């Protein structure tokens, strides 16, 4: 609205003034107000932003010329010519946010100093640099003598990620609050997860048949949450296996995951009071190649015929290769993965499948610890919160307000 009003006023003025002096053809180009230079916000510190207000001279054929120089009065080197109808603050929301007012400000990012406009390898900008602005309609050039300067520096906080920080804090407070709540009244209601209830029975059955239990941790490394969740479930499962004095085989895809699993299973046997029953070479490394691993695990399944196969963690196309071989040996199979693309194959081959989030809830569910169960309640409240946001957000954005969409913009 603001822009339109100014334009209207300008047109009437020109019409009124220019009618007697129509003969004069020199363009009346006024210097833009608010010409400033500043370190580009939210960046690593390798660029400077030049800002100046959009004005009446922004018309076809008019362009701004940017000059830079390392010294205040030093040689002014032409950097670039920018069309006056392009380059606004609103083009870079990651620096200047989403307010409407950005559309009325020109913006030019300087990342290097060129000796001349055709300079092929300009020097990256590091120290304080001075800038001048000029305007030209293709033929004559009018320089504006206001000089501004700025120095690039790394910023310590990226304001465009404020919304992420707020949501991280909300979720963390919700979850930690419910964990502390669980410390007070431990009897929290948690719905049954059939796949996890079946683990006890599955291990019992395997012990009766005198055949081992096979446990896989997926194909990611130890820094991925899917694998961490899988090793924590292994701890609880190994504890039950030790109580039944049965054996658990863990063929591994990654040496670090193998070491963690050896540590976890050893502790489980120790806590079950059977430290000597722990066989470290039941947890062994095969290979770090997807299909060689699948071929070797298939071989183990066909030869050792484990009575129970547990597939936890993240899987790729080899999931069906392993699970379908397991079906042929009549094993009881429980899978838990957050690999959404592989869930259809586990559902068609396993007796129980933990879907996505249930993999992460498994270790808390099996531990029965109030602290751990508290976090599940915190997750439920977060889910309720997201459902509300989805419904309100859609209604709001259908009604035309972009508030919600902008709230969740990520850069």
């Amino acid at each position, binding site marked *: 609205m603001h822009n339109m009003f100014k334009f209207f006023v300008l047109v009437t003025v020109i019409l009124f003034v220019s009618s007697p002096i129509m003969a004069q053809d020199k363009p009346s180009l006024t210097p833009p107000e608010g010409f400033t230079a500043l370190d580009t916000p939210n960046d690593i510190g390798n660029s400077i932003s030049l800002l100046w207000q959009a004005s009446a001279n922004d018309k076809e054929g008019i362009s701004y010329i940017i000059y830079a120089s390392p010294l205040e009065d030093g040689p002014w080197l032409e950097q670039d010519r920018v069309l006056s109808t392009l380059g606004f603050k609103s083009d870079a929301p990651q620096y200047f946010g989403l307010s409407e007012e950005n559309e009325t400000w020109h913006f030019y990012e300087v990342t290097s100093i060129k000796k001349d406009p055709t300079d092929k390898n300009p020097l990256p900008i590091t120290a304080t640099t001075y800038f001048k602005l000029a305007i030209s309609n293709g033929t004559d050039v009018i320089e504006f003598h206001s000089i501004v300067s700025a120095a690039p520096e790394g910023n310590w906080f990226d304001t465009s990620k404020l919304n992420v920080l707020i*949501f991280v804090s909300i979720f963390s407070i919700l979850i930690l609050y419910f964990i502390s709540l669980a410390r007070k009244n431990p009897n929290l209601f948690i719905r049954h997860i059939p796949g996890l209830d079946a683990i006890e029975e599955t291990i019992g059955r395997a012990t009766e048949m005198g055949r081992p239990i096979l446990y896989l941790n997926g194909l990611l490394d130890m820094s991925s949450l899917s694998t961490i969740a899988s090793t924590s479930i292994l701890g609880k499962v190994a504890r039950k296996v030790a109580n039944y004095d049965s054996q658990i085989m863990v063929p591994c895809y990654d040496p670090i995951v193998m070491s963690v699993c050896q*540590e976890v299973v050893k502790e489980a046997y120790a806590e079950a009071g059977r430290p000597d029953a722990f066989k470290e070479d039941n947890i062994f490394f095969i*290979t770090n190649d997807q299909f060689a691993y699948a071929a070797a695990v298939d*071989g183990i399944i*066909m030869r050792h015929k484990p009575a129970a196969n547990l597939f936890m963690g993240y899987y790729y196309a080899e999931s069906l290769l392993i699970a379908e071989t397991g079906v042929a040996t009549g094993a009881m199979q429980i899978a838990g993965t957050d690999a959404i693309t592989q869930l259809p194959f586990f559902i068609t081959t396993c007796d129980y499948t933990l879907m996505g989030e249930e993999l992460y809830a498994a270790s808390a569910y099996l531990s029965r610890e109030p602290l751990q169960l508290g976090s599940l309640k915190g997750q439920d409240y977060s889910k309720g919160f997201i459902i509300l946001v989805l419904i309100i957000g859609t209604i709001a954005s*259908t009604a035309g307000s972009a508030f919600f969409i902008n709230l969740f913009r990520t850069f």
Partner: protein
Amino acid sequence: MDSTILGGWIAAGLTLFMFSSLYKDNPFYRFGEHLYLGLSVGYIILKVIYANIIGGLYKPLFEDHQYMLLIPTILGLSLYTRFFPKIAWISRITFAFIVGYGSGLTIPRIIAGGIFQQIEKIITPLGKTGATWWEVFSGIVIIIGVASVLIYFFFSVEHKGIINKISRVGIYFVMIAFGASFGYTVMARMSLLIGRSYDLIEFATPKYYYATIVLLVLMVLILILYESMRKKEEGSEANA
């Protein structure tokens, strides 16, 4: 016999060896499996030596003097304390280092990349100009789907009454989605088999001296021999 023909015989042989697991576990599959295991581990050792150790550690440390790399070296070596029970606990520090790094890195990225982008995608305005009533209906179906699936996964609420009904809707969405993506991938898997069949057919041509056919017949004969030998052995064991 230039290397292409030899390569053809090897490829045809190994393909038939691995396919033989479809019949049942047999020496051919075991041979292929162990050959593949050895080759892949050999390949990994080469990669580790040249890329990780020489490229990632030896050169930067000794030639470019990046002494900070001593820290990961110590962390990596500390994993070997596992062989000495008394000081095995030191390896836990490396576990914590990796697990802590993974957890810290994930939280903001999964909120920005996971939650925000999903929300941004779902709350797009329904009634965009020129949107047909069908698109508006589909938009509503998506929101109902996402909400009901989320409610299905509620942990601290009993699946009773209204919650149970909504969860049922949620699981229906999940099942249709999984059925569809299962059906969708069948074509991709089939084209893999088509690719192998092309090769096997090509290796059965005179140019490759009928490699596939010769190898197939040989394998079947040997398997029959192997089965009968095993039955005789089991027979003699049974009455021995």
